[in-house]
């Protein structure tokens, strides 16, 4: 790693400050260029050892930078969000008096129809995503768990939606959903589902349209999670069930499903959290329109912050999002935490 970083520095062309900082702060010295890779590392670690840092101390030392970064970027803003949510702060009215505003933002939240519609859009997106991604993902995972000609191709193809930027997915579907030259209209017209071209993203079908794009992107990841679970099932279980004369369906119901239950749980939690925080696709596909029919809480929070510059109320919305996520995270951490602690002991 260290060999990479300074090299990159010099190739970027302004290494001077960085190296000065190294020299002045590092008692080891000569952390320059290739020296780092060859000489310094060895002496540094040897000294470290001879000076006898206990394993525990070393552990804290290694963990600290990561914790500091995460705390500074995630934890501190969380606390700030809580503080902001109790004040009236508008960046476009800088002279407003600051200070505790008697939970006015929370009263506003409860009476705000856009918040409630945002919450229901978020809930619908989560629900549709979880149900469709998990069920389609299950089928696809079962298929991918078999070996067949072209399995690698299918699996690689599944990675395409996962690897694409959300912006690209949104523009792609926006063009496919176009009310005049979109291919989706062409398909549904040919299938006889509609009698004329529909304005999908501008009408009542906007939310299902958004769901399709989100599901298209998320199903692969869900599939791989389930697949990972499937692959842990020992083949002997199936053999045993077969000997007992269980049909394919029964084998699925009594062997497969119980064995992948924990993967499914985790997939549900992942999907819920991902769908709940969805922003890229919505922002680029419909911007929440028409009306507020596709505006979820994330988009509304973003707008309140950066279009209306209402940082007090924006923080209140953000806090609501945090609390909702926290509930889901809590279950997840418990689920994973159990596995962690059991492994820690064992």
């Amino acid at each position, binding site marked *: 790693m260290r060999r990479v970083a300074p090299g990159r520095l010099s190739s970027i062309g302004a290494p001077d400050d960085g190296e000065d900082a*190294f020299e002045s702060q590092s008692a080891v010295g000569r952390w320059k260029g290739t020296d780092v890779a060859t000489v310094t590392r060895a002496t540094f670690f040897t000294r470290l050892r001879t000076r006898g840092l206990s394993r525990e101390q070393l552990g804290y*030392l290694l963990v600290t930078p990561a914790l500091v970064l995460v705390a500074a970027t995630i934890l501190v803003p969380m606390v700030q969000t809580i503080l902001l949510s109790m004040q009236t702060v508008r960046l476009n*009215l800088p002279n407003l008096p600051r200070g505790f505003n008697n939970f006015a933002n929370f009263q506003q939240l409860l009476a705000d129809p856009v918040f409630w519609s945002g919450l229901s859009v978020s809930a619908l997106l989560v629900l549709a995503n979880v149900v469709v991604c998990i069920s389609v993902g299950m089928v696809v995972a079962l298929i991918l768990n078999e070996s067949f000609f072209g399995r690698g191709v299918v699996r690689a193809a599944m990675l395409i939606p996962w690897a694409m930027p959300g912006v690209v997915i949104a523009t792609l579907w926006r063009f496919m959903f176009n009310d005049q030259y979109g291919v989706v209209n062409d398909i549904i017209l040919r299938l006889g589902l509609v009698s*004329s071209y529909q*304005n999908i993203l501008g*009408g009542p079908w906007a939310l299902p349209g958004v769901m399709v794009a989100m599901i298209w992107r998320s199903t692969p990841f869900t599939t791989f999670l389930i697949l990972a679970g499937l692959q842990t099932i020992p083949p002997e279980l199936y053999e045993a069930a077969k000997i007992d004369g269980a049909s394919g369906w029964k084998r699925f119901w009594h062997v497969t499903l119980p064995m992948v239950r924990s993967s499914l749980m985790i997939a549900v939690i992942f999907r819920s959290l991902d769908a709940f925080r969805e922003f890229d696709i919505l922002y680029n596909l419909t911007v929440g329109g028409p009306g507020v029919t596709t505006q979820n809480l994330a988009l509304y929070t973003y707008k309140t912050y950066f279009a209306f510059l209402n940082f007090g109320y924006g923080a209140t919305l953000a806090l609501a999002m945090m609390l909702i996520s926290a509930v889901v995270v809590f279950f997840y951490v418990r689920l994973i935490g159990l596995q962690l602690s059991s492994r820690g002991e064992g």
Partner: protein
Amino acid sequence: MTSISGRRFRRRAILGGGLMAAAGALLAACAPAPAASPTTAPKADTGAASAPAAKPAASKEVVTLGFASQYTGGTQLEDDKKLVGKFVAENPNIKVQFVERPAGGAQQNHDWQVTVYSAKDSSLDIASVDTGAQWPAEFAPAGWLEPIDDILPKNKQEKLMPQMIYQATHAGKIYALPWMNDVGVFYVRKDLLEQAGKKTPVTWQEMVETSKAMAKPPDMWGYIPCYRKDEQLTCNLQEYWWSNNADMTDKDGKVTINSPEVVDAIQFAIDLVKTHKITPEGVNNLLLDEGRQIFTEGKAVFHRNWGYAWQRAQSGESKIVGKVEMAKIPKWGPNGTHVTNLGGWSYVVHSASKKKDESKKLISWLGELPQQMEKYLFSGNPPAHMDAYTPESLAKYPPEIRAFAGPYFEVSKTAKSRPRHPQYREMSEIIQNEAQAAILGQKTAKAACDAMAQQLAPFLKDWKP
């Protein structure tokens, strides 16, 4: 003991410090160097971009101004760059770097600009702002704009559209230099009306009757407004209810947006699509200029747009060259009023700019008559300088533009401005949300207006028109 723990402490500091220093060094090295980009800026810009921060700007030192045009792309942006290029050629100590704005409508532009301003990002010196959508009413009290009384004294202000000067003035100081005089125009296919033996409609109701007689969707629509969730929707709706002698509030600031007149206006917007079927459902999602394309493709009899659409209708891409007429925005029945919505864009200087003098010099130059007239010709956006409409000036335009500019100027003097409120952006969004819900059939017009009234009440509590 102490010495050991001391050494330990130092060692910890060394490693921690080293890591932090490494991170710091990496971060320091990645400060953007716009000049280094081989694809964009020529070498001359290179030094300029980084120089001002380092040394106090001497008079002959080259400075680079960050400039946000109204245009987000295409030939208009290119032409705008050429226009500014003339100024740069005359002022060798000033370079201009165009800052790209997001596409998608005036509101997204607004949102982009306020994040720049609230970050006190000094890389943006000059911007073109939507005076009609009350950006100056938000930006000036927020302290983001530099007063420009020194380059725009009263005698110069008198040459510019008075309503725009009014919108640009706050607490006795002027903050924005108007360059585009934009008002709503009702475009009419006079050739089709003649063929059908119809007159240009004076009221909305006549417009509906004429449209129903002439429309053959999807090849020929009656009326194309813009109902996309953007400021455009609010503008269209305001014209409906203004023409019905109604408004968001009465003179005392009492909320009247759920009055029967406004409800009728919203219902009218719905009926155009749902009942009369003279307007395509797609207008709910069409960009302003996509609607304009339907009209200039010859697929609609009537169209509501701004001044620029005239020039588009006369250009090579249009299939209706010479077949269009401008008319007053219809009134609401015999007792209604012809009202057009005041739009318009102005130049402002960012208060966090480090190059205010040069910035003012540039916008002052852009605000002069010849530059405004030149911009009119390449963009189709009519100028805010009133001398651009004198007989001498009109004589300099091509005939098809001359024919439009005179009457347009007269109409524009009567334009009505939107509520001058620092949170107009948010208020407008409330109107759009509820109106679109009504247009989609999720709510009745009455329910939508009641919801608007409820949500707008906090904004209008201490506000008077």
